[in-house]
């Protein structure tokens, strides 16, 4: 992918091979209403809502504008192209794996490679501190977000069970759950043996036709790009709507710096495209680069008025990085599982998200069944068990008989876990991000608990020779929202306390990580932000 695809009045039509949709274009020198940096779960969704509300929107995405039907090979190695592979430093006692572990690259962001798990937060988590005694309270409640969870689930046509066992009563998912694969049935079997509830995972991939999306064919390459468009990524859901509503998307456009005007408001974004630095003027800037690139851009936009980083009066930009710890348990089964078939995570247990008794830790975790493809599985085996030589080949030969459970476990937001700038520069000459992370004692106790519980469930399901692994997923919290400027970077609307035309719209917003995958909550937050911005504009408060 060398040359940008959008331009000349058109953008790729993701639903037609070689097809194009018309795209409105804006001049760099015309101050558009909103420049959105990042076209992922936050940026694409908000760009869509803003454009549909009549605002002029330009989206800058560092990566390419994918054509799923043509670009996505059924191949793990070739599809590494979906990930943010530009250099970053990652250290600390429990250094986070980045790249393909959690960082997407391209229009659609990480929703192009994500596992489509679409879960809502437990209502109490929005009041983690006051109701559950840990972490921080969010500046909004579950009830504030519920209508937008509805909206996001409908927009994504989430395919979920008729009755989801956890959470407040809710309307039925738009589409029905998928047929459970054997990997998921292992979790189900184990859970039933233990008398624990389990469920099909509500997935953002369709179980029946939807417009031009055919139903999922269970090819299993979800983490490497859906080549059929069954997966309802931001690329095929929000971006086409944004384009139709008059937004412009500029692919292969790396934002380098946000310019602050003399009036103390953001004036626009410097970005690099086609080997030249350009500057897009804007009345508002939305930063939606996810929890590493968003603080990085703000820190790289330091200026006289904000020497610690743009909009960083609180000093919190880049801090309180959270992730989801992902302890895993794996076992061999007599039956053939062939876990490469179907989405990688089809069954879930949220028992420990909704049960507070019997825990020696704060917070919650969900865990799901697994379906790693060969390259990913081999790399997990070698890094976690240090297998090599014939021992590795022998272990890999059991591939079709393996099943596993991996948790999505809430880590505590702490100032020591952070994103800063390194002395290293990338190919654009920009200082790269330096990420530091370590678990707290609480984080470790939670992971121990999860390993024990999941191990018990796998054994109950008939698993043999169980062993455990460590991992993480998702990155959150580095520009968190809050109720006052001392303890947060943005307010409940995602608006910077310091620069009132600067907004954040991605996983950086999360004051706490919760015990579920973040993509649905990010998209719901973006839908809410779109509505809030409309309301503010109507009142002249923009």
């Amino acid at each position, binding site marked *: 992918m060398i040359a940008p695809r959008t331009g000349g009045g058109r953008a790729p039509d993701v639903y037609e091979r070689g097809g194009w949709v018309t795209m409105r274009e804006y001049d760099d020198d015309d101050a558009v209403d909103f420049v959105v940096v990042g076209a992922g779960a936050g940026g694409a969704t908000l760009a869509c809502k803003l454009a549909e509300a009549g605002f002029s929107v330009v989206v800058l995405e560092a990566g390419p504008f994918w054509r799923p039907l043509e670009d996505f090979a059924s191949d793990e190695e070739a599809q590494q192209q979906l990930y943010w592979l530009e250099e970053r430093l990652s250290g600390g006692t429990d250094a986070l794996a980045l790249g393909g572990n959690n960082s997407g690259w391209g229009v659609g962001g990480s929703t192009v490679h994500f596992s489509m798990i679409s879960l809502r937060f437990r209502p109490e988590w929005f009041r983690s501190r006051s109701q559950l005694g840990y972490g921080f309270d969010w500046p909004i409640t579950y009830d504030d977000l519920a209508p937008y969870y509805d909206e996001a689930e409908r927009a994504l046509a989430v395919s979920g069970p008729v009755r989801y066992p956890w959470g407040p009563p809710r309307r039925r998912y738009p589409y029905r759950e998928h047929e459970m694969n054997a990997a998921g049935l292992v979790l189900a079997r184990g859970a039933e043996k233990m008398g624990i509830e389990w469920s099909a995972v509500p997935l953002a991939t369709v179980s029946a036709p939807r417009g031009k999306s055919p139903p999922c064919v269970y090819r299993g390459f979800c983490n490497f790009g859906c080549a059929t468009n069954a997966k309802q990524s931001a690329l095929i859901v929000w971006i086409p709507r944004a384009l139709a509503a008059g937004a412009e998307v500029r692919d292969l456009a790396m934002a380098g710096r946000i310019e602050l005007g003399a009036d103390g408001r953001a004036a626009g974004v410097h970005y690099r495209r086609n080997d030249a630095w350009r500057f897009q003027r804007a009345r508002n800037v939305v930063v939606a680069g996810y929890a590493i690139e968003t603080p990085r851009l703000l820190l790289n936009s330091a200026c006289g008025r904000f020497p610690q980083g743009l909009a960083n009066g609180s000093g919190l930009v880049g801090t309180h990085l959270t992730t989801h710890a992902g302890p895993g348990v794996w076992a061999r089964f007599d039956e053939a599982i062939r876990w490469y078939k179907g989405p990688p995570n089809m069954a879930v247990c949220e028992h420990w998200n909704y049960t507070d008794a019997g825990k020696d830790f704060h917070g919650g975790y969900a865990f799901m069944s697994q379906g790693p493809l060969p*390259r990913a599985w081999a790399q997990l085996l070698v890094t976690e068990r240090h297998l090599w030589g014939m021992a590795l*080949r022998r272990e890999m030969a059991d591939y079709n008989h393996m099943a596993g459970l991996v948790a999505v476990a809430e880590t505590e937001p702490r100032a020591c876990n952070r994103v800063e700038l390194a002395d290293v520069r990338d190919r654009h000459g920009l200082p790269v991000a330096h990420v530091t992370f370590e678990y707290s004692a609480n984080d470790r106790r939670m992971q121990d608990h999860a390993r024990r519980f999941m191990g018990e469930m796998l054994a109950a399901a008939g698993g043999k020779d169980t062993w455990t692994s460590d991992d993480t997923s998702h990155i959150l919290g580095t520009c968190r929202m809050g109720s006052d400027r001392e303890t947060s970077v943005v307010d409940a609307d995602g608006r910077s306390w310091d620069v009132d035309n600067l907004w954040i719209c991605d996983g950086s917003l999360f004051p706490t990580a919760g015990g579920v995958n973040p993509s649905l909550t990010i998209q719901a937050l973006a839908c809410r932000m779109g509505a809030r911005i409309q309301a503010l504009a109507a009142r002249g408060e923009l």
Partner: protein
Amino acid sequence: MNEDAPTARFPGYDVLAKWDSPSFDGITRNTLAARLDAVPPRRWLTQDEWDLLDAINARLLPQPDRAQPIPITPWIDAMLHDDRGEGYRHPDMPPLRAAWRQGLAAVDDEARRLHDRPFVRLDADAQDAVLHALEGGRAVSPGWQGLDAQRFFIHHLLKTAAGFYYAHPLAWNEIGFGGPANPRGYVRLGFDSRDPWEAKEAR
């Protein structure tokens, strides 16, 4: 050390037999054709580094059962030529190319210190001993200054080699992986259920 390759679990299974079936699409065929037929020549590693890496990979993923082994070294060389990493590194580790250059030299130095000979001239057991020392964090060479030997072994040498090995159709045949699947995915998803185009397990 048991040197026997694992018994064939899926005899007769060949992912590439599905080349013209609905399991393969154009982009996948192009991708795999390049992987199979366009194995890149040496462009970044020196000849000595290449030979050393070949010898290391032969211990990490031994293939005595193959007349034409799955190539690994050429793809690592290509990766280094393109400077295409994972997208992150530990602050204590040098950048990709520097890490590999230094690491390979240090592995060879390790061999010389342990056995008085370069790695490529050691027998398999001696080579394994060198690699085990790295795996166990028992490296002695000063060549590891600024580069964690264990991390280099696990996260660079081994992880990369395993990645390229299991990205090859022969490895997919070995483990009975369904392989490419577009537009045709899978119908039968349950326990002990196999579509006719999936690998049949020998019992």
